[in-house]
């Protein structure tokens, strides 16, 4: 009776898909362009066979083209979308981008694009500055209201 064996690390790896390639048509393609001796034909067949058995060689040697995109959690905003997000005017957002307060993510023509995270980070900083100013202003107002 067979007992189930604990799978080892190597047996857990996914094996490359088995490929069945007829090498003869490939050799015929080569033969159309160069004259092959029987020995050269044998060597080419042997090399093709090795090539297609190599697991690093897959059906396509081209790497898939990946388009660099931002994570779904950090969308790219236009200046108007950024302004709407934090409740300020679009020219003010543009001014803050040009001043370097909000990092410019990309320029599409003459349009600026920013990351949501950058807009929110800047907004948090500005709210902190405003809170500080409001605290000082509140103390100043108190002294004005309650002065003799």
């Amino acid at each position, binding site marked *: 009776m067979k007992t189930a064996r604990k799978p080892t690390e190597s047996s857990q790896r996914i094996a490359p898909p088995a490929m069945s390639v007829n090498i003869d048509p490939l050799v015929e393609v080569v033969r159309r362009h160069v004259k092959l001796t029987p020995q050269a034909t044998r060597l080419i067949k042997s090399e093709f066979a090795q090539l297609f058995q190599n697991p690093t060689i897959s059906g396509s040697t081209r790497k898939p083209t990946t388009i660099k995109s931002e994570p779904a959690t950090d969308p790219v905003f236009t200046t108007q979308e950024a302004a709407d997000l934090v409740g300020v005017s679009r020219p003010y957002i543009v001014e803050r981008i040009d001043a370097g307060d909000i990092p410019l993510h990309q320029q599409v023509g003459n349009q600026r694009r920013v990351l949501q995270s950058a807009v929110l980070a800047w907004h948090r900083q500005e709210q902190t500055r405003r809170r500080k100013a409001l605290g000082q202003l509140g103390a100043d107002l108190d002294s004005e*209201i309650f002065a003799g």
Partner: protein
Amino acid sequence: MVPVVADVDTLFGATTRGLLIHLDYQGAIRLHWSPLIHDEMSRALADTGRKPDAESARRHEQLMRAALPALHDAWQQGALRL
């Protein structure tokens, strides 16, 4: 957001001034005033003794600017004229 234009009469009273600025900070209104309104308010505060002197009134004006950075940036850009 409701736009609110505050003139000198509105900004003269300290309680109203503070309330409007706080409402803008909370996002309930969008407060506007112009440099001319600000200048006149500072002068009136100093002249009536609400502020001890013109310098104190100017300092208060600076704090108001810091509390509403978007509004004051719009002035500098010439985007807002009242």
